[in-house]
């Protein structure tokens, strides 16, 4: 096993572990948003854009993982 192997391994692990948190978080956001829409269907127009924005914010940590793995792979 040389350094190159560990580089690829590290990038894969970084991305995989980093994707866990955002996955759970976005699931919670989407679930709660759907719950809210189910309770009050008229508010769907207001809830949907906010849901997308909060999901994007939840994604941040995943994006950081992506940055790290891109740096490992190409930097």
């Amino acid at each position, binding site marked *: 096993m040389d350094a190159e192997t560990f580089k690829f391994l590290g990038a894969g692990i970084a991305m995989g572990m980093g994707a866990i948190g955002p996955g759970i978080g976005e699931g919670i956001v989407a679930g709660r948003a759907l719950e809210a829409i189910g309770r009050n269907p008229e508010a769907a127009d*207001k809830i949907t*854009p906010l849901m*997308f*924005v909060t999901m*994007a*914010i939840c*994604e*941040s940590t995943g*994006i*950081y993982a*992506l*940055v790290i793995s*891109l740096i490992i792979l*190409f930097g």
Partner: protein
Amino acid sequence: MELSVKLAPDILFFIGSFPVTNTFFWSLFISLFLIIFTLFVRTRLKLIPGGLQNIVELLLESGYSFVKSIIGTEKKTQRIFPLVFTMFVFILTANLAAYIPGQSAITLARQEGPVSLFRAIMSDYSMVFVMTLITFLTTQIVAIIVHGPFRYLGKFINFKNPLQFFLGLMDLIGELAKVISLSFRLFGNIFAGEVLGVVMLFLAPFFIPLPFMFLGLLTAMVQAFVFAVLTLVFITMASEIEEDELTESASI
């Protein structure tokens, strides 16, 4: 055929010592298209709107009311709407242009091999970074105008007590992290979409990549929206005067 994934865009030609990359070339093209489209619609404005004008008016009005619902007042909306909506339209057009069929087949012959004339613009980090810097600078300028330079600086550096000092430092890091997360969100999504498309085409050329392309279309729309809305939210947050600040200035 081999799988090639590149982070940096390809250089098409040089003007003097200035390298013209394929993403830069296409961003000029998209800008030109949007300008001509706007002028075209503008010269044909009628009191009773026809087909195209109806669509544009619908987009503008719904966008305007959405921006107003977030930022609050009419005056602020009029100032911030052009920036946010331009960002949205530009990113959306740039992302969707990547799905025009057949454009990736157009290549320039070079001695290193064929260089694709087209590449999704937002998969070039320089472009996204510059757009994020526009957001960042606008946010800072708005915050400085609203809070005053010294009060704004005092939010980050104060020596009242150790906890406040630490929180100020955290705020400083938070501001810088905004730039990274905002820019890499758009870049990462579009770049990952491109790579996913390439890998799927490489593994199974027919029909299998289609669902991934639909996913990419969704990403293209959502990310354009998210970038514009986050810009809007950051500027809104910077432009709001907090409660304790109001009472503080009232007591003075």
